[in-house]
């Protein structure tokens, strides 16, 4: 049961977190939520494609194709989330959005699509493998139900927490929550690159695994939410900090731009 719980929980929470945040944010800027459904469908289609070519991808690049694909996907999700947060900040003044709608739609497709692709492939491989084995199914079903239940509940609570805020607050809160999520995705991507020997392995800077073990439920939740890493190396920290920095600076810049755009339009009005 635990394995099913941990796997389903980990994958679904990560996807739910992104989806519920983006859903609340798109709701508060009055964007059509149908786009999210489209993005999820894109993700499912992507997952089907990835699963189909999984073996070929795994064997590519000297057997580290899987790591490179995962890292690319993770960096892609992070980039799309970054642009989506800029898009949201650009919407702070409803009268003068800084970016056209298609920027938001593409960022939405990219982030949700790629995230779903990654999570669904993992679940698909696990479940399809399990169907081949003679083990009893009940523990897996229960574990899966527990994991899905916890993940969906968290998604619902996050969604309502953000969408019950006023428009401005909900935009700012979702952007701020997107920062550690995106940086965490980069962190996971860096680990994959190390595993594939594309980045040098280093000894960890610190070890908090005795405090919060990564295989505990809390550790797993923290991992899904913010890519909790008990033993980060200097490279991990560097990538994390720079992603956070780039996102915060970008948001600041965009909010300045949005404000000055507003002033200009007032002047010429």
């Amino acid at each position, binding site marked *: 049961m635990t394995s099913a719980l941990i796997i389903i929980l980990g994958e679904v929470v990560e996807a739910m977190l992104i989806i519920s945040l983006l859903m609340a944010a798109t709701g508060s800027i009055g964007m059509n939520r149908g786009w999210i459904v489209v993005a999820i469908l894109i993700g499912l289609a992507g997952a089907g494609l990835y699963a189909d070519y999984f073996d070929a991808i795994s064997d590519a690049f000297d057997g580290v194709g899987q790591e490179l694909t995962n890292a690319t996907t993770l960096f892609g999700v992070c980039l799309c989330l970054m642009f989506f947060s800029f898009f949201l900040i650009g919407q702070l003044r409803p009268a003068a959005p800084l970016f056209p709608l298609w920027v938001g739609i593409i960022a939405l497709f990219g982030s949700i699509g790629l995230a779903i692709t990654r999570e669904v492939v993992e679940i698909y491989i696990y479940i399809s493998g399990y169907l081949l084995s003679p083990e*009893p199914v009940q523990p897996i079903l229960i574990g899966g139900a527990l994991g899905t239940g916890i993940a969906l509940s968290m998604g619902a609570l996050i969604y309502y927490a953000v969408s019950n805020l006023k428009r401005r607050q909900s935009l700012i809160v979702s952007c701020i929550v997107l920062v550690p999520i995106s940086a965490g995705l980069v962190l996971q991507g860096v680990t994959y690159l190390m595993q594939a020997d594309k980045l040098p392995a280093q000894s960890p800077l610190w070890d908090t695994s005795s405090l919060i073990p990564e295989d505990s439920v809390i550790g797993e939740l923290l991992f899904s939410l913010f890519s909790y890493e008990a033993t980060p190396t200097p490279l991990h920290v560097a990538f994390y900090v720079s992603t956070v920095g780039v996102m915060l600076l970008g948001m600041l810049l965009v909010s300045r731009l949005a404000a000055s755009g507003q002033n200009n339009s007032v002047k010429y009005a």
Partner: protein
Amino acid sequence: MRSIRLFLTLTIIAIITLVNFLSSVRGYRQSMDEAETLFNEQLLENALLISATLPVGAPAGEKAALPPLSVNPRLDNTPGFQSLLVIQVVDDQGNLTFSFNTEAQAAITVLEPGYRDVNFDGYRWHTLTYRDTANERWILTAQRYDIRYTLAEQVVLQSVLPIVLSIPVAGFIVWLLIGAGLKPVIRLAEELQNKEATDLSPVSLEATPKELAPLQKSTNELLSRLKASFEREKRFAADAAHELRTPISVLKVQIHNLLEEWQNPPPSAQQLKIGIDRMGHLVEQILDLNRTSPDLYMAQFEQLDLFELCQEVVSDSYEQFMDKNQTLELLGEKGLIRGDRFAISTMLKNLLSNASKYTPEDGSIVVRVRSQDKEVILTVSDNGPGIPAAERERALERFYRSGQDRNPPNQPGCGLGLAIVKHIVDLHRASLTLGTPESGTGLCVKVRFRKPGQGS
């Protein structure tokens, strides 16, 4: 639009799920740890049992010397029990002296006291190495890891399963309960929605809940204030007009007498007469306007032939047209409608007098009644200056008088005619359009009445 019911149901269920599931995961883990300890104790007990019963130096072949172990009667019936327990006894030289349930020819685990996980015979085993100090030998007991796990899990899952299954049930019940709790809100909303525009009576709910009482109270207060001010307005205009009638009649008589007495009345006296007539007309129109207001008119609907009614009104007001040398044509056929006789003839009078007023001398006016499958259409067209399209909307307002140039200076118009017509049209749920007649100039007023029995 966000639904309170959905919000409450989802968040409540989310919280129930989170709390229950997380605590059952915790419970599961603790129970599994307990089971682990229990199984380890079993391994130890078996080792102690062997150490106490198995004679030293028994050869490896005598497996049958040991009666079948029954660790737990429940497990006897579990498939795979045969391979649950493995026992080996090894002497200090490392020779196997006893072996139960395994074909392994060497010690299955390290000869160092303690519990360990090892792979052999194609499975993963949890092993205990026990030092039998009295007999100077090692007793090794092992249980299959997957069986231990599955057995423990079977038991523990029985306590988790109901929690998982109960969530959908809880969700359904919460949905129903919140629906029941929100009933009064929905009923209040329905009551307000179903109110007729003229119905300003207070809303009442049976057993108003505490939270809705202030809303209901303030809504009812608002309604009663609205009603009072409506009535005040209505009464004031009606009373004022009514009160003005008497002095105006007196004035009319006086000016009549005055003009009779005067041999040669000065022009200003003539002007005075026109002014008084005009005031009289205005007061009559205000009274009509109030009387026909759809908010308060107590209509008495009956089956009417619109064409017949037109004939009556036309013959009554023929003089007006004769004075200006205008031609008046009445065309059409029988058109049955449901309407209030007084209101409809007031409407016709107003339409005709408007047409006559705004059409120059020698002009022509056409009244037509047509009956179509679902409607009876009345059109009154003149060949006067008409009303520009942009102003037609405003023309129906009270005291609107289209571009002052259109109004012949001596006309006793007061700008209420079309407003009265509009009232009566609304009262009959008919539709009113102002347009241009086919001839190209003038005004064409079109009123469409639904035929009786054609929907509400």
